């Protein structure tokens, strides 16, 4: 069927597909997806981001391209390039909305149909990494995304949690989802892990501490690291700035660079 032929050609140039998941909302999936993309770019890689959060697409604004439009070409949609060098490209439903405040009030079947299109009809070209940012949960979007990506053997999934038990509780379910769907878990990130007061340097564990690391141990998956709460990071994302380039002294920078390096290590051990 031409659909399958189309899928083959548009993802054929993508070397590694990485999903960013969490059972829980608001833990920093889009943040991590964006920062990973920026860090991988700084390591000289060509990166695409596919934002399959149809109800709450956050990535366009985080990369300052919220006002851009998507164009069509012969092979499908041309993703939006974030920079002059075309080293980061992005596809999101955010680009298809007439007004940014328009709510996408769709039931499952319609969401599934668009996700399949996003996976088969975006002309990514050659990419080192395609990062797939997902909404919270284990439902239509996740099932459709994993099913559609299966023929392309994704590298795996990075799971994001915050330290407290209420988040970890949902991420445990996401681990089950990965197991059931045969998706490799590259590791768990514990985000919003501690806040260092910029005035007095006192560290407060606002959302508790250690839950992500404990979960990784309990589940037997790698722990990729703790990323602290960092107002400079939040501000960067609000303004669509390149945090990795502009804030190397920031408290979240070492953790984020470290995580990107671990992803690169996974891909190089895969090729060898």
């Amino acid at each position: 069927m031409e659909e399958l032929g189309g899928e083959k050609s548009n993802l054929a140039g993508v070397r590694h597909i990485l999903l960013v998941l969490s059972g829980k909302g608001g833990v920093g999936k889009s943040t991590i997806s964006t920062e990973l993309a920026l860090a991988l770019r700084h390591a000289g890689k060509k990166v695409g981001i596919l934002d399959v959060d149809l109800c709450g697409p956050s990535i366009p604004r985080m990369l300052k391209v919220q006002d851009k439009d998507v164009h069509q070409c012969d092979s499908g949609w041309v993703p939006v390039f974030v920079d002059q060098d075309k080293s980061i490209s992005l596809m999101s439903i955010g680009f298809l909305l007439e007004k940014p405040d328009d709510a996408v009030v769709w039931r499952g079947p319609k969401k599934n149909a668009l996700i399949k299109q996003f996976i088969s009809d975006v002309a990514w070209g050659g990419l080192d990494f395609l990062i797939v940012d997902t909404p919270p949960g284990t439902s239509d979007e996740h099932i459709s995304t994993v099913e559609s990506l299966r023929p392309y053997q994704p590298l795996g999934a990075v799971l994001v949690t915050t330290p407290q038990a209420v988040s970890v509780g949902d991420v445990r379910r996401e681990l089950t989802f990965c197991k059931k769907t045969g998706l490799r878990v590259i590791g768990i990130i514990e985000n919003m892990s501690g806040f260092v007061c910029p005035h007095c340097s006192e560290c407060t564990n606002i959302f508790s501490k250690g839950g992500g690391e404990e979960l990784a141990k309990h589940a037997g998956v790698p722990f990729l690291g703790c990323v602290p709460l960092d107002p400079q990071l939040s501000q960067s994302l609000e303004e669509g700035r390149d945090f990795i380039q502009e804030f190397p002294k920031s408290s979240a920078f070492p953790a984020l660079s470290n995580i990107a390096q671990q992803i690169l290590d996974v891909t190089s051990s895969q090729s060898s």
Partner: protein
Amino acid sequence: MAEEPVAVSPPHDCPGTSSAQAGKAAACQGCPNQRLCASAGPAGPDPALEEIQEKMKGVKHKILVLSGKGGVGKSTFSAQLAHGLAANDTKQVALLDIDICGPSIPKMMGLEGEQVHQSGFGWSPVYVEENLGVMSVGFLLSSPDDAVIWRGPKKNGLIKQFLRDVDWGEVDYLIVDTPPGTSDEHLSIMQYLGATHIDGAVIITTPQEVSLQDVRKEINFCHKVKLPIIGVVENMSGFICPKCKNESQIFPPTTGGAEMMCKNLNVSLLGKVPLDPQIGKSCDNGQSFLSEVPESPATSSYKNIIQRIQDYCGLHQSQEK
């Protein structure tokens, strides 16, 4: 012999198999199930709607807790709202958790591990206090690792059951905690409760634009489905360092926060709740933050907001009379 549907991915723009347009829309051309959908005839009214309406007659006030954005504190707020309202032991409070994939309420209410029991009157809610009952998919799962990997229609079926089959009894306040987004669960709760009276929605956000941009969509959704908005709560609004007492904006309101958004969209700002590490701790331990840390500024914020919600519901009740 009844024709069986063929398992295929639905066409782009599939109107949905239970829609009035099923089999008849332009998008249906070429779908192997087109004939089946078209021949099904107009779907009659779901009998459950009437049953739910009957069940809801004993519920005086219904409040939906919504947000376009995940992780802003909907469940946390729902839990505190439930505790706050139930502090008056003459009031009967019910807390319904329709987040099917990520049910946080059992843990937050200290009810992890509880199971649902059946009685002659239906499913019994799990009671935290005599006057505070809770229902969640969490009580139907046997292990904390169990994932609910369901597509929309199955989730909708469970929501219908929660409304139709749970023996809530006579209730003063029914609080419905929702997952983030504007999708199946939200449409279903409006579909099933739409014919009954819903007092309104409390919308939760955090100060930064990345949340507000999703919350504006949720406000848009409320207008579309004619759900009144009681107001917006700005959560995680500033953090006071316990050591030096200086304030930090961890989630900076770069576009004016909820205050500016509410002004622009003409909705009420019910209040702002600061970040307090004790909130997360109480939730993790299944305790009422309002009771555990009564001296926290966050507790007074919550209590003021809860009072405003009660006033709103009371005002509407007297208007109805």
